[in-house]
């Protein structure tokens, strides 16, 4: 037995209130196995991982229980003993490759640091070892990466550097905390392959923390399902995935988006178009250098043509940087195209015709406004009277299933899903024809995600709304879209009906995207 956790409890005290983050969990990890720890946000999975590394803050946080690693209880070990384990025998890879590397140190130096922390060797040796580690994590030109600062690396490269640091000391246990969540799908599957390969080469065990059953299916041997700080179900992967016992696990599994190849609605001849775009172009100029001599031109949207019929959904798929968000902002008029034209069935773009819902429900609502003021903002702007506003508020809150009683609350008093409903209500309050949905469910837990998607479908059916559904997740797009546009580097490389895209993709990039979906 490599790691054994007995009755682990973690509590946080905040303003005198005690919050149980982890409430008495037991589990073990054997040598050479991958244990998947699944749960929604707030279930206590990251806290559990941090407690194994003893990385939790000492202030306002109490931990009890046993953490037995190779026969030694880490819970009662002193800081010096912990340090000999942390970073060498147990290591960790975090979710955010953008914040977990120090921006003012070259990638190579950071790997070297990780080695120096545990072994006294010469600088030269450390450098050679770092390069070989970078080769091990399958970086194509390790010497360039070694000398690069983190901001010059892509998300995937950064995550590889993190992994190189984590395996530098040939750990017995690697804790991977959502290591691929922030990455694009194609890179995500590469990183997962890499981790599995390294696990085999180095004979290590992996505690894989994720909210995504697709990833579990690919990597895990055994699964622990965490909910509200308790392990509610555990077992072999195939048992959990095929025959879950607990209701919560069933609900979680059902909510996981899957590509179903369900046939789409056939387009009827004579359907009116809601929005047509022709030859849209948008280039951003980024000025570099002290004297702004260097110009970097980024072509965010290039020669895009599209048409969306009334009451239909166009799914826009692409990886980060493909220009899908820019396209959305062009369509609604938040950005002006350099060239090209957009025609709407209704005259004006702004103020009612077309509205937008953003990805992050935390930054899309003004934290200092009450829910009712947020929802009614559009009407306030156009100077609608009080009685009218009141009736619209009741009506629109009912549509998105929000409680009218909560209208005086502020955004921070709502959950992520509720906030996204508020954002949808704000858009609907001005009675739009077209909604741009820019990754509306990407930052939500799967169960909530499903609820919001169903709400959007319901609303579309009832009010004949036209959607532009922007997402990186092909599974979600299949659930929502009638037609799908695949974007790569600012261009639409393939635009076809859902059936064609999913069943017989033509462009190689579309094929690659589809094959990396789990």
């Amino acid at each position, binding site marked *: 037995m490599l790691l054994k956790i007995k009755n682990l409890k973690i509590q946080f005290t905040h303003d005198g209130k005690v919050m149980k983050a982890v409430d008495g969990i037991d589990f073990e990890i054997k040598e050479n196995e991958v244990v998947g720890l699944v749960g929604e946000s707030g279930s206590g999975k990251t806290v559990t991982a941090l407690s194994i590394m003893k990385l939790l803050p000492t202030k306002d946080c109490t931990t009890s229980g046993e953490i037995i690693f190779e026969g030694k209880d880490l819970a009662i070990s002193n800081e010096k003993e912990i340090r000999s384990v942390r970073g060498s025998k147990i290591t960790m890879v975090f979710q955010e490759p953008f914040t977990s590397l120090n921006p003012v140190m070259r990638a190579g130096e950071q790997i070297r640091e990780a080695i120096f922390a545990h072994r006294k060797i010469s600088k030269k040796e450390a450098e050679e070892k770092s390069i070989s580690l970078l080769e091990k994590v399958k970086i194509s030109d390790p010497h360039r990466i070694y000398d690069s600062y983190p901001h010059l690396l892509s998300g995937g490269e950064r995550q590889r550097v993190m992994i190189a640091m984590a395996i530098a000391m040939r750990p017995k246990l690697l804790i991977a905390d959502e290591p691929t969540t922030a990455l694009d799908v194609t890179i995500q599957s590469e990183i997962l392959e890499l981790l599995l390969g390294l696990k085999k080469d180095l004979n290590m065990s992996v505690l894989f923390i994720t909210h995504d059953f697709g990833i579990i299916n690919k990597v895990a041997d055994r699964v622990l399902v965490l909910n509200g700080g308790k392990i509610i179900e555990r077992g072999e992967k195939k048992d959990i995935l095929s025959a879950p016992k607990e209701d919560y696990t069933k609900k979680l599994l059902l909510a996981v988006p899957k590509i179903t190849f369900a046939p789409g609605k056939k387009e009827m001849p004579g359907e009116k178009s809601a929005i047509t775009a022709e030859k849209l172009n948008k280039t951003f100029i980024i000025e570099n250098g002290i004297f702004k001599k260097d110009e970097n031109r980024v072509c965010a949207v290039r020669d895009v043509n599209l048409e969306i019929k009334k009451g239909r959904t166009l799914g826009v798929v692409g990886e980060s940087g493909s220009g899908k968000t820019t396209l959305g*902002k062009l369509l609604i*008029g*938040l950005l002006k195209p350099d060239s090209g034209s957009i025609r709407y069935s209704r005259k004006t773009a702004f103020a009612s015709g077309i509205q937008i819902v953003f990805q992050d429900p935390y930054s*899309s609502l003004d934290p200092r406004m009450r829910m009712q003021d947020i929802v009614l903002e*559009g009407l306030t*702007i156009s100077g609608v009277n009080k009685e009218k506003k009141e009736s619209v508020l009741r009506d629109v809150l009912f549509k998105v299933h929000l409680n009218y009683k909560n209208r005086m609350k502020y955004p921070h008093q709502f959950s992520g899903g509720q906030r996204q409903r508020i954002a949808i209500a704000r858009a609907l309050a001005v009675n739009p024809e077209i909604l741009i949905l820019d990754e509306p469910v990407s930052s939500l837990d799967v169960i909530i995600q499903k609820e919001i998607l169903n709400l959007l479908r319901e609303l579309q059916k009832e009010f004949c709304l036209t959607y532009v559904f922007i997402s990186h997740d092909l599974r979600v797009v299949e659930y929502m879209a009638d037609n799908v546009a695949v974007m790569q580097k600012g261009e639409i490389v393939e635009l076809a009906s859902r059936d064609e895209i999913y069943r017989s993709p033509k462009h190689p990039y579309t094929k690659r995207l589809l094959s990396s979906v789990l």
Partner: protein
Amino acid sequence: MKKLFRNKLTVFGAGIILFLLIVAIFAPQISRYDPTYIDIKEALLRPSAEHLLGTDSLGRDLFSRMVYAARIALLIGFVAVGLAAVIGVILGSVAGYFGGKIDSLIMRFADIMLCFPRFFLILAVIAVVGPNIFNVMIIIGLTGWMGMARLIRAEILSLKIRDYVSASRALGASDVFIITRHLIPNGIGPVLVSFVFGVAGAILTEAGLSFLGLGVQPPNPSWGNILMEGKAVLGVAWWVILFPGLAILITVLAFNLVGEGLRDSLNPKQG
């Protein structure tokens, strides 16, 4: 708010400011004598039951003069810094929101203003336009907006790219609507802190000007000009210089304590 009053020193400072405000508002009720009434026979009396803080060299009741001076100090402090805040917030938010040439123009102007040593600039201008309460307020206000403009500009630069601003624009909001409803309410925190510190600074500046004879003109009382008058009789009447000195010290301290507390409570990094 709760966080703000958890700090005992802040509560102490706020208590003093509240006390000063009450004194300033009810000055006529509190003081027993006319602060400008001269009675040479009563000159330089020690503090007693009759004259709580004694009398000055012209026989005026020092307590009454101190109370009325508090009124003037607070009036100048709040009005001057209020003016600075209004100018600063308007210019700063316009600069931050629109960016480009407007931003460069406004911020370079602010930089130029910051190049002048402030106190000497105020002295020079007062010397030209003439010393009185109104002029002192306006000039302290006009020379104090730059810091606040910088603060709000920085806030707005980061706030204006938030999604709720885009959402508001998509709903048809005008620039003025976005600035006044979304950006200023969310970015005003640092300006409030700066406001409180600014009041302390303005009170000190006014006292300094009055001490030099370029602020509040006698016979109107001000802590600064009482100090100046006290200087002449320092050897025989310690009370004339001690009390206004203490008053300035305590008032500035109180505002600084509250400013400090406000800054900590707005800083999310501190628990």
